[in-house]
């Protein structure tokens, strides 16, 4: 376990204890009262019976009052316990969840990990169900109550017969493994991820119940087919699940039979060995009926606690595994004069290298264009340059004065926030942003439609907001990038869904307004290289070509091919036109 995630957990518990001392001591008092109540009740019943048989009724009224009082105490302690738990939940629900999500949000995850991530997160969700920390505390207190009760009752039992607790102990030794086994079956079923068929079914279901799936089924008419596939897979899974369920139920009933039968058994055995009175019998029966389920719930509480901690450990392990540390991003303050990478390699843990032996140097004010084949590692390179990822080998250096490429980014998969236009543009700014700044950013991104409809226009269609097109969203995303006054600008395929006129407008506006900023552009459209001071060609996990457009064209490598393929229709057109004009 790494230091930080571990601290996260212990820190939570410590904070809870510090902040809620009163509450926790209250719960402790309740625990002691709660555990004593059944013992008192059983003893009073035994005493009452004794009194009744002997016909002495002098103390009966007093005992009845005490009996009534125990009932009140029982209800009141349950009330206090529940309310304390609610209060704990209110104050601490989502605290831990928030910490973990924050941690996850700081990690740079490979998008291909998303399915695996989702699976692990199902486990995380279980571990972090609302107020898990407070639940754990309550669980611990509960187990304390149960333990105390068990001790009290055992003492009570011993007052009747020494043999009884011994028999109980011997019986339990046989039953404990069964109980643990039953708990484990349950845990496996709840935790999922243990049954491959379950994963397949849930992945398939998610893909079926999606908007894209719906559109395709409706157009391509394969609904019946996919339904059958689902049904077959589901039946296969159902068989396994039913088997597990039967196993679980059988075990559970074996156990419950045991705790129903064992009091009778114990009384039988005790009667063989001792001569006992009716009041002793009442105490014996009463105590047994309290004792056995309490012991079972003790085991259950412990396994639940273990289960929660196990899940928690899983979360932490997952975070450790998939958190390529991103130190730089968090504490850099100004734009660096240069960013230099030498012999950089990068791989996600236990996977093969995405990039190997990469060298680059970027100067302040450069426009760097990254081009390359699909899946060659362009996005990873961007993350390395900006410090979102740390290389597995080699290092990225910045000039000394500055610790950070602070910056802003536009990625293909940008957030389309269902809030106001203002929120969408100003989402990452720390201080208050004036309307003028937002207008300026919107103008730079050619988002005039947003200025027309007003900054407070809601974009949540469900709440009566307006519906804007993909191109318009893209401009809001770009405005978000332009609102910061300094720092690197990252544009990942900024023109993919822009029409040609908007594309050229964007380039001109970027050249006009941000000539002094470092801009990193990733694009399949080589028109972007017009802006570039430097072009990096990424191919098969390495930078194969570096230079300006002219230099790269002379090299006649991948860039040369790319450019020729894309430019050919246009160049032909101009050649023909020229020829026509000449004629």
């Amino acid at each position, binding site marked *: 376990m790494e230091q930080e995630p571990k601290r996260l957990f212990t820190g939570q518990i410590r904070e809870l204890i510090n902040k809620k001392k009163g509450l926790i001591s209250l719960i402790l008092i309740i625990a002691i009262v709660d555990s004593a109540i059944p013992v008192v009740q059983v003893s009073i019943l035994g005493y009452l019976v004794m009194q009744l048989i002997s016909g002495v009724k002098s103390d009966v009224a007093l005992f009845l009052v005490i009996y009534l009082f125990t009932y009140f105490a029982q209800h009141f302690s349950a009330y206090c316990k529940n309310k304390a738990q*609610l209060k704990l939940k209110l104050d601490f629900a989502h605290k831990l969840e928030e910490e973990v999500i924050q941690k996850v949000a700081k990690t740079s995850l490979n998008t291909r990990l998303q399915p695996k991530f989702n699976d692990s997160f199902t486990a995380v969700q279980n571990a972090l169900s609302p107020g898990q920390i407070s639940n754990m505390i309550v669980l611990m207190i509960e187990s304390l109550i149960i333990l105390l009760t068990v001790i009290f009752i055992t003492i009570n039992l011993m007052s009747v017969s020494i043999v009884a607790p011994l028999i109980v102990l011997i019986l339990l030794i046989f039953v404990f493994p069964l109980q643990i086994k039953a708990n484990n079956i349950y845990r496996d079923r709840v935790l999922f991820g243990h049954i491959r068929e379950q994963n397949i079914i849930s992945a398939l279901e998610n*893909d079926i119940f999606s908007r894209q799936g719906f559109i395709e089924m409706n157009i391509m008419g394969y609904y*019946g087919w996919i339904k059958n*596939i689902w049904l077959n897979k589901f039946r296969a899974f159902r068989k396994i699940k039913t088997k597990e369920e*039967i196993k679980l139920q059988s075990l559970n009933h074996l156990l419950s039979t045991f705790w129903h039968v064992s009091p009778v058994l114990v009384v039988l055995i005790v009667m063989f060995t001792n001569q006992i009175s009716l009041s002793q019998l009442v105490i014996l029966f009463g105590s047994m009926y309290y004792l056995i389920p309490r012991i079972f719930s003790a085991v259950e509480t412990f396994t639940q606690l273990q289960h929660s901690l196990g899940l928690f450990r899983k979360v932490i392990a997952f975070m450790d595994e998939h958190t390529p540390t991103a130190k730089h991003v968090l504490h850099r303050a100004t734009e660096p004069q240069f960013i230099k990478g030498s012999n950089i390699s990068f791989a996600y843990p236990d996977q093969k290298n995405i990039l190997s032996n990469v060298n680059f140097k970027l100067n302040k004010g450069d426009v760097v264009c990254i081009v390359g084949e699909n899946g060659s590692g362009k996005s990873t390179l961007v993350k390395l340059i900006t410090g979102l990822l740390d290389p597995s080998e080699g290092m990225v250096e910045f000039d000394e004065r500055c610790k950070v490429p602070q910056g802003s980014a536009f990625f293909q998969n940008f957030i389309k926030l269902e809030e106001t236009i203002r929120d969408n543009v100003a989402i990452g700014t720390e201080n208050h942003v004036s309307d003028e700044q937002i207008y300026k950013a919107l103008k730079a991104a050619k988002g005039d439609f947003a200025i027309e409809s007003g900054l407070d226009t809601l974009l949540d269609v469900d709440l009566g907001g307006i519906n804007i097109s993909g191109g318009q969203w893209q401009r809001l995303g770009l405005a978000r990038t332009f609102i910061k006054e300094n720092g690197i600008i990252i544009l990942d395929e900024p023109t993919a869904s822009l029409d040609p006129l908007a594309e050229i407008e964007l380039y001109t506006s970027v050249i006009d307004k941000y000539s002094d900023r470092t801009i990193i552009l990733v694009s399949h459209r080589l028109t972007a290289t017009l802006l570039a001071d430097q072009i990096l060609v990424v191919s098969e996990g390495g930078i194969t070509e570096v230079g300006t457009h002219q230099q790269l064209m002379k090299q006649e490598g991948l860039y040369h091919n*790319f450019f020729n393929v894309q430019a050919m229709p246009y160049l032909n057109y101009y050649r023909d036109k020229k020829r026509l004009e000449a004629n």
Partner: protein
Amino acid sequence: MLTKGNWRHLLQYYNFIKGYKSWLVLALILLSIVVPVFEVWILNATKDIINQFNNSNNREDMLSYLKLLFILVAISAVVNWILALVIALNNSANEEKSKLIVLDNFIKHKLSEHDTFDFQQRFNLIRYGLNNCVEGFFVIISGLISSLIKVIVLLATVSLLNNVMLIVLLIIFVIPISIIRGYINRSSLILDWINSYNAIKSRYYKGLLLNTSIVSEILMNKSSKFMFGKWNQHMSEINQRDYKAGVKQFNLSLLLGILLASLITIYIANVVLSQEIIANPGDLFLIVTAAVLIIMSCENLFSQIQMIGFQSNQYRMFKDYIVSQTNERSNSKHLTASELEADKKDDRDLQINNLSYRFQNGSKLVLDDITLRLSSGEKIAIVGPNGAGKTTLYHCMMGLLEPTAGTVQINGLHPHQLSPEERASLFSPVFQSTHLYKGISIMDNLKVGREIDYAMIDAMFKDYDYDQLYGGHLGGVELSGGQIQKLGILKGLLGKGILILDEPTASLDPMAEQEVVTMLLRQTRDRIVILTTHRMGITLQFDRVIVLNQGRIVQDGSPQQLLQIEGLFKEMFESQGQIYKQLSEVE
């Protein structure tokens, strides 16, 4: 709450899930009658033992009584076990059934005109809700029967003891109080969790924060503070409300609990202080235990009724959601066979006549009087500025949206009147982002249930193992964005009819783009191909270009023709072309 309307919903819902395994239901009901009877029997036996003990103190008698008790408990345990198994089997059968219901209804959804983030999440919550609902139906009913029988049997047993005070106390005070307690023990907060504003918003922000593909943006733009702020704000409102509801419930529960405790104690005092009962401590035991059991059963009974109300609400929500989202194909008139025959003449022919489309809540026409006719083998490219209406035109062509005015006809058929299966033979689509199903093989993903031409697959990807499962975390294969897009185009090519492509090359590198377009045109000699793109260079390989602007066709002709005249196409082409020209001149 259980109202008349809820019962009605429940009955509808029962019709909805008909087709149960009837022997399971029968066993469930039967067992729910047997189980409580056994429990009361055991109680009676215990009473006898105590009385016997008090009267004779004969060890031999005692042992035989205890043996009887032992056997009774064992048998009851077996019966309970069988009940649990029946419930398990029942649940597993019903899960399949309920999922099928949801699946069948999902396909009837209306295509929403906007893409809401919460669409899938909300639908999922509702479908899980329905799942529980189906699982629980008979189990709840059997629980209801069980509790009812227990109360009746217990009351009968107690009344045998001729204790008037007890019966009066039970009927007038204890049972009503237990009912109220049972009622308040279940709250219907879960319903709010699906539809309340705060719940939707908190889910929304959490979903964003946990989406790995946008984590980079959140990090770079430092927007996590904003998002966490929002998430926390909505979350704390939910918690606050839960807390208030919880405290209210506990307060009431405490009050009633104390009331019940007092009543029982008063009663016991009465019994103890009266002389006749002292002779039989077993009766005392029976009465006390029966009183407690009756309270528990009453609470149980009424929380089961509460559950029924809750479930019927779940069902109603599901139904409302489905109805509000379901396409009504009421105007669908299927053409007669002879009409179909007559139309067959225009083989593979697309006609769009005066097509207009307006969104339900919109004032502007998204498509305005579009007329277009394509014949077999024609390859056309549709270009136009963002928001010109390209996607809407596609959705109208494919029958996902019904035209506000005008008609779309393919081979004389109106796509929006056809069933999905009928549409499949008219066209095959390729989307900007390809949808592949995880958990099935790549080949199945390409075939999607159709008969396909394997030669075409070989032509596109040689030596590729198509039988691999798709989905890395399932032990299958992972694909890169480029690969997925190529498979998407192959999936389209393997289909029949008109090929409709929506910016299929937007995420491909230049070489891959060229490769794909060439292959596309080569493999589809006599099919109509319609493609939208922002890359003007590609359009030169097409027979015909249609320029769409603000919902209207502004230009129509071969790309070479359109380049000769001033207009939007030339403007767009040159705005891209001049950059390439500039770049090549720098050389």
